[in-house]
């Protein structure tokens, strides 16, 4: 269902580095037509660029404002490109002299999302065919209506939203299917049919030096995804997973803001929430000719049912204080309690040739509950000339208990356990912002972050057929150091440069079982971003961004000689250029260019697991705007390409585009 609600037409201001986001008062309309020509993998082009190849027409922008009577002001903006379901329509109606007396906003936003149907496959798999032969397009549309008005002395805000998704998306996952008894990457896609309905209602009352807000939020979701896998060859099998789920979430919220003095501000809030999710699921296994297969470890579940209930209580407090002149302090506390109850059943057909008759049923009951406390303390000091230092400390402690009870189809496999999870997080950051001179801006920050998840086996009844204890590890730790710094130089009014540097190193450690040594891994990332901008005149600007990202991750698998998984590299470089020249009041040139490239491919053809992205990605667009009396004609030309290492993927493309826009005053 793709209903288009044209209640209002709103036009987004063009993303133009020369004209910023002002609210224009004059009315205008900009019809547009464009053509995208592509070579090679046009579906990959559609995924990255978000537009279909070929011809497209529509309204790029339409805006106008109008007074309705003496006090009502109507603002109308819209954008509608039909072939890509690309709509953004907004009506804003308000009391022009005092918007708090009445405000109504309604709109519709939608677009298509395209996916390459070759997702999930690598060239070195046995079967060379990667194509799902499916058209993977997802329609994502959202309609909302929001009103604000006073009611019995309370400022009332009400909002309703309907979010609809429909279509097909690619999945990049390990397939359930097998190939020659080994699990392999299998291309898969999901059919999506999802509706989310939201309603919000809040009341705000002004009190002495503050305000009190009461709010409620309802969310209902109806979701029916079906995931399908593609048979890779005659030796493989595929699994179809279909889910019929609905969920309901409700939250009520009360918050109080009070200014105790000009230098002391407080907020206190409480949120209670309830959720209920029900999912029915079928998992069915097929051979390459579409026949059902079963038995052994093959999955054939019919009518699996999960029912989950949750509730949460959150108390949050914030104190802002200026204990001394120019010293600002923020103290925040957060505490929560949450619990979840889940019951699930797994009826399974175990026949070698499934006959859709349930042969066995397993059940699982889970209770997960606990509480947590979070603390935040930060300072910043403005009393120093041209220099503001700051300090931030945060910590969090969570205490959760997971109680699981599994009744298997075989009594000897029945299993129950209680696991306590203690999660401790801490963060410390120190930094400053400064302008040593008017033309020189400098900022820097150093931060430390540690997270530790500690699992404790409280009690368990292990299955008599196995010796495993808790399915969890003993503990997982992440420890990070990070530095970021930003330097900007404006040596002249028309030449400005900047350099931003970020470094982050994270150490991971996991202890599989108490008493054993930890496995360790680490990731290390450097990011350099340089900015260069020339503005010799207000009519001319040239801005260039260059970014170099150097990141690698080494895991425990790198020490295992047979695993052949050395460090993973995620390096890339990017160059972005934006050029605008306002030749005269009648002529303007605009150019956008971006180019990014990566070279991380390691050839592991023998294992069929090429690691690292290795590609080049470029886009170029030139606009010329020519003002003719009350109209502006803007022809555009663009081109670009994508190249990838062909052992990792087969998705190269080239494209050229031509576009004409005509802006007319109304």
């Amino acid at each position, binding site marked *: 269902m793709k209903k288009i609600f044209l209640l209002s037409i709103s036009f*987004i*201001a063009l*993303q133009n580095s*020369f004209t910023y*986001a*002002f609210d224009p008062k004059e009315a205008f309309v900009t019809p547009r037509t464009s053509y995208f020509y592509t070579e090679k993998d046009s579906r990959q082009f559609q995924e990255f660029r*978000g537009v279909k190849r070929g011809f497209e027409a529509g309204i790029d922008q339409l805006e106008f404002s109008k007074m309705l009577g003496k006090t009502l002001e109507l603002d109308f903006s819209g954008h509608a490109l039909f072939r890509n379901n690309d709509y953004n329509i907004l009506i804003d109606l308000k009391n022009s002299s005092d918007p708090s007396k009445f405000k109504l906003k309604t709109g519709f936003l939608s*677009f298509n999302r395209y996916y390459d149907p070759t*997702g999930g496959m690598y060239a070195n798999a046995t079967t060379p065919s990667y194509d799902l032969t499916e058209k993977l397009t997802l329609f994502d549309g959202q309609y909302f209506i929001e009103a604000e008005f006073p009611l019995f002395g309370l400022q009332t805000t009400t909002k309703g939203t309907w*979010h609809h998704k429909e279509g097909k998306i690619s999945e990049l996952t390990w397939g359930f299917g097998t190939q020659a008894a080994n699990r392999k990457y299998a291309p898969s896609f999901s059919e999506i049919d999802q509706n989310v309905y939201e309603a919000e209602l809040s009341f705000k009352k002004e009190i002495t030096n503050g305000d009190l807000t009461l709010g409620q939020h309802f*969310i209902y*979701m109806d*979701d029916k995804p079906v995931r399908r896998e593609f048979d890779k060859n005659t030796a493989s099998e595929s699994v179809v997973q279909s889910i019929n789920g609905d969920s309901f979430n409700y939250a009520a919220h009360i918050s109080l803001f009070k200014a105790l003095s000009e230098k002391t*501000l407080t907020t206190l*809030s409480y*949120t209670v929430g309830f*959720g209920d999710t029900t999912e029915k699921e079928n998992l069915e296994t097929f051979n390459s000719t579409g026949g059902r297969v079963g038995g052994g470890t093959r999955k054939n579940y019919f009518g699996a049912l999960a029912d*989950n*209930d*949750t509730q949460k209580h959150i108390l949050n407090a914030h104190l802002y204080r200026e204990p001394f002149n120019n010293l600002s302090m*923020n103290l925040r*506390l*957060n505490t929560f309690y949450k619990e979840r109850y*889940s*019951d699930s059943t797994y009826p399974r057909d175990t026949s070698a040739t499934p006959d859709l008759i349930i042969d066995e049923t397993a059940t*699982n009951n889970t209770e997960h509950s606990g509480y947590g406390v*979070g*603390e935040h303390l930060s300072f910043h000091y403005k009393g120093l*000339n*041209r*220099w503001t230092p*700051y300090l931030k400390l*945060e*910590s969090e402690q969570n205490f959760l208990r997971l109680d699981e009870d599994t009744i298997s189809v075989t009594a000897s496999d029945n299993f129950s356990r209680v696991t306590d999870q203690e999660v401790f997080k801490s963060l410390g950051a120190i930094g400053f*912002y*400064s*302008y040593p001179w*008017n033309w020189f801006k400098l900022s820097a920050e150093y931060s430390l972050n540690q997270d530790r998840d500690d699992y404790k086996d409280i009690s368990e009844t292990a299955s008599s057929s196995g010796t495993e204890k808790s399915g969890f590890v003993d503990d997982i730790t992440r420890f990070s150091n990070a530095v970021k710094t*930003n330097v900007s130089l*404006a040596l002249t009014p028309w030449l*400005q440069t900047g350099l931003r540097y970020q470094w982050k190193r994270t150490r*991971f450690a996991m202890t599989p079982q108490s008493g054993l040594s930890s496995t360790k*891994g680490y*990731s290390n990332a450097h990011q350099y971003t340089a900015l260069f901008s020339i503005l*010799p*005149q207000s009519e001319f*600007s040239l801005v260039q961004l260059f970014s170099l990202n150097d990141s690698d*991750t080494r*895991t425990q698998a790198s020490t295992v000689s047979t695993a052949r998984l050395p460090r993973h590299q*995620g390096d890339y470089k*990017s160059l972005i*250029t934006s*050029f605008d020249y306002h*030749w005269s009041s009648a002529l303007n040139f605009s150019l956008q260019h971006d180019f*990014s490239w990566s070279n991380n491919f390691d050839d592991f053809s023998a294992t069929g*697991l090429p*690691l690292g*992205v290795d590609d*080049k*990605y470029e886009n170029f667009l030139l606009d010329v705007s020519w003002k003719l009396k009350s109209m502006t004609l803007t022809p555009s030309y663009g081109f670009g390409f994508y190249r990838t290492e062909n052992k990792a993927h087969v998705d190269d493309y080239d494209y050229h585009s031509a576009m004409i826009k005509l802006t007319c005053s109304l």
Partner: protein
Amino acid sequence: MLTSFLHIYIRIGFIFLFLISCQSKQTQQGQKVLPPAFHAQELKGATYVGMSTCATCHDKQAQHFKMALHARLEVSGVENTHGTSCEMCHGPGSLHVDGGGDKQKILNLKKDNQSCFNCHTDKKVEFKLKNHHPVLEGKMSCTDCHNPHGPDAKPWSAVSESGMNEACFKCHAEKRGPFAFEHEAISSSCVMCHNPHGSIHAKMLVQNDFDDHLRY
């Protein structure tokens, strides 16, 4: 590859030289030093007015902003050249004030993210990568996930009111749950595995699938 866009830049350079030689130059004598964003035509000639002036109309926002994460950006001694508080992002406000709150004379960041990118340049780079949220395409904006005026500009911290992943669940409702078996990483944050701005990896993963889990 390198030569192809080198040719483009050379040609642009010639065009640029030709164009500027044909134009009478306007001098920049005495113009205050401002970040690139504020050289927009519409703010030409504007000067900074200070937060107290902003607060005469936007008193509630000014009051709440003291509690915001971005409040620490304020630096003393540069009020007239770089602005403080509101004007750091919304631009110099003198024309907006003189125009009685003229919306055409102030930067509206809900519609344009350029002011965010003036400081967060690395995020603009990430949005240009092939796997990214469609912010630069106008399908969403920075304020859909971030509240620049609030205490949680990043919506995930030990003291976030609404919880770590609520910003993600607004559009990805099917990930909210609850579920019978929950992925441990989600109880921390979606950003454990995904870079929400952009990534060279599919699904905006911070790494490809294998190493994402093998880190632990």
